[in-house]
């Protein structure tokens, strides 16, 4: 059932499980308890639609190297950030879960094999095809697609799948409508998690609406499912008994904030043209053998590359470069004429110019009129072949204690401290980017694929990394309270009944987009709670 918190009669609500946040983690967990007899309250800050006032609660202070608006990277209404999710899905690599000498000293307290059954279940939740990623026979079954660098022992082609994307707030809205054991409370902003006097057990959460209606929820188990930034913020804000915030005895809450580091990494000038219909370019390729799935392909390092070079994980997304035969031929003719030569194959080049006159005219007119806008509409990839591709490098960020979410002195509508984000990357991250491009360049040369152009920013170690809006690591998982905020069951260390379900529990990020892993971990936590309730 859906309830607007503004219409609540009671000031205290009770449940077996209280889940805070109705994004992919919260909805996935609540869904697992449908028709189980377990009473679940799912609290959501927003309603069913985007609302400026609610969204503004996400605003905060950003003192990071990259000053993005904290309210832009998340959505605060039913379905959470899946409402603007792109849909890329891929499990983490096995190596992402283990401690790696020379890269980072942290490992997940769970084995990859233990996650696989949950990844398979998460595939259904995220409306994906069969769980196929690293099947060695995949390419043999798809002779129409030819992976790059097939012979390379340094780089490989990895698959990912595309969710439709699943808008959790829309796809799963109806299943809670008639539910007798699950109530979704909308417009319920959780302000604080309250504990007993020892700070060892959660007694209730305090919540309010924007119309200043206050209420609290008592439950046996509480799950914070508020995303990579807000989950840490709520723990830090809940500081009445534990003065540094809940689960923060070792000053770990909010630290190790990570995002996938994004950078333009240059281009490959191909020796042999690639078909425009390649899986590398068409990121939602349907394959006859798996009609329910949409696949994409990218280049990633092999295990030995990561270990031998002590590198963080990464991927190259390759896309057709905007090329124009007309402009290339114009440049060539101008270059040769300028040098006093009659251009070779002049007829061919003139034909290229004439057949692509719109592109050539755009360049000329934009120069003459000092304009940014095209004068003629041009289809950039009208041909069937691609001779040059651009490289987008998306990397695992090396965990860094100084990269963190803190509380700002700025206050929100409820007089709660806003977030202060200090996202930091290190020289090691810069070096990893350089090494990744060098490896690609060497392999492209070795296997006669093409030549790589590397931008100065990569070469000089001065990449202004872009964000991927994947907020990771602020309540990291570890066996010990000394090194992590939650344990392998995602329970906050030293607190009996408080759990976190979010990308904030990932100790490392790999290169895979986080939603599939968030969903898998939510399913795993739901199974755990079914056992312990």
């Amino acid at each position, binding site marked *: 059932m859906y309830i607007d918190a503004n219409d609540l009669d009671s000031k205290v609500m009770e449940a077996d499980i209280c889940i805070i946040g109705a994004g992919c983690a919260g909805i996935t967990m609540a869904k697992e308890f449908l028709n189980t007899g377990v009473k679940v309250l799912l609290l959501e800050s927003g309603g069913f639609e985007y609302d400026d006032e609610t969204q503004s609660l996400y605003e905060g202070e950003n003192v990071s190297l990259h000053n993005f608006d904290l309210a832009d990277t998340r959505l605060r209404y039913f379905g959470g950030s899946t409402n603007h999710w792109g849909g890329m899905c891929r499990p983490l690599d096995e190596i992402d879960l283990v401690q790696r000498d020379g890269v980072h000293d942290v490992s997940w307290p769970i084995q990859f094999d233990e996650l696989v059954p949950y990844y398979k279940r998460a595939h259904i939740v995220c409306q994906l095809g069969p769980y196929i990623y690293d099947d060695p026979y995949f390419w043999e079954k798809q002779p129409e697609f030819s992976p790059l660098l097939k012979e390379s022992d340094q780089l490989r082609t990895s698959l990912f799948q595309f969710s439709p994307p699943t808008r959790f707030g829309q796809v799963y809205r109806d299943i809670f409508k008639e539910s007798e054991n699950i109530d979704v409370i909308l417009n319920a902003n959780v302000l604080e998690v309250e504990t007993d006097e020892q700070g060892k057990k959660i007694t209730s959460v305090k919540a309010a609406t924007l119309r200043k209606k206050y209420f609290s929820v008592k439950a046996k188990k509480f799950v914070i499912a508020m995303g990579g930034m807000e989950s840490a913020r709520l723990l830090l804000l809940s500081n009445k008994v534990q003065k540094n915030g809940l689960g923060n005895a070792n000053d770990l809450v909010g630290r190790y904030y990570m995002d996938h580091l994004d950078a333009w990494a*240059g281009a490959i*000038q*191909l*020796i*042999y*043209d690639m078909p425009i219909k390649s899986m590398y370019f068409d990121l939602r390729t349907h394959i006859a053998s798996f009609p329910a799935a949409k696949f994409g392909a990218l280049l990633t390092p092999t295990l030995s590359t990561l270990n031998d070079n002590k590198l963080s994980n990464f991927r190259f997304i390759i896309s057709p470069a905007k*090329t124009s*035969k007309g402009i*290339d031929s114009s*440049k*060539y003719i101008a*270059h040769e004429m300028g040098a006093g030569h009659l251009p*070779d194959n002049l007829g061919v080049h003139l034909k290229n110019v004439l057949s692509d006159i719109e592109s050539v005219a755009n360049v000329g007119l934009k120069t003459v009129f000092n304009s940014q806008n095209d004068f003629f509409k041009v289809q950039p990839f009208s041909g069937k072949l691609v*001779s*040059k591709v651009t490289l987008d490098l998306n990397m695992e960020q090396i965990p860094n204690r100084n990269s963190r979410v803190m509380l700002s002195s700025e206050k929100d509508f409820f007089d709660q401290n806003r977030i202060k984000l200090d996202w930091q990357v290190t020289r090691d991250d810069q070096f990893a980017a350089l090494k990744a*491009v*060098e490896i690609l*360049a*060497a*392999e*492209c*040369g*070795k*296997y*006669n694929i*093409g*030549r*790589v*152009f*590397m*931008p*100065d920013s990569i*070469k000089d170690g001065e990449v202004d990394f872009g964000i991927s809006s994947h907020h990771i690591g602020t309540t990291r998982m570890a066996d010990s309270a000394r090194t992590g905020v939650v344990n392998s069951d995602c329970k906050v260390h030293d607190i009996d009944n408080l759990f976190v379900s979010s990308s904030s529990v990932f100790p490392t990020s790999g290169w895979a987009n986080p939603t599939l892993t968030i969903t898998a971990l939510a399913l795993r936590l739901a199974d755990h709670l079914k056992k312990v309730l």
Partner: protein
Amino acid sequence: MSVKILPRRTFIKNVSIFLSMPLLANFIDIDQPVLNVENYLREVLPNNFSAMSIGEHIVSVQKKSSLSGEMNHLFMILGVAENDILSMRKQTFITILREKIQNDFSIGNFSNIGGWILSDTEVGLYKVLFLIR
């Protein structure tokens, strides 16, 4: 780096070898000549626009150097004697060149020239091609 000064006779001979390839090839091989600029690029870098783009970048950043010095350097790194080239079929030469370039990338003999990551052999070759042109 010091540039070896070639005797005038050797220099003229080297240049003659390169420039006369189109003619010599007609007698040696029914194939196209070995070191004709355009044909080389078409064979080793079959995408002509790719070759042009890369060449343009190198030319814009390379310091000028002597043709004879660069040619001798190229022969040296290829491990091919001048006289052998005269009797070599084009495909054989291209195979040697390609293997050398690919080996360069395998063992880390490459450098960043104006942003392009090129094998040391390629860099030598492009210098020669540019200087001939």
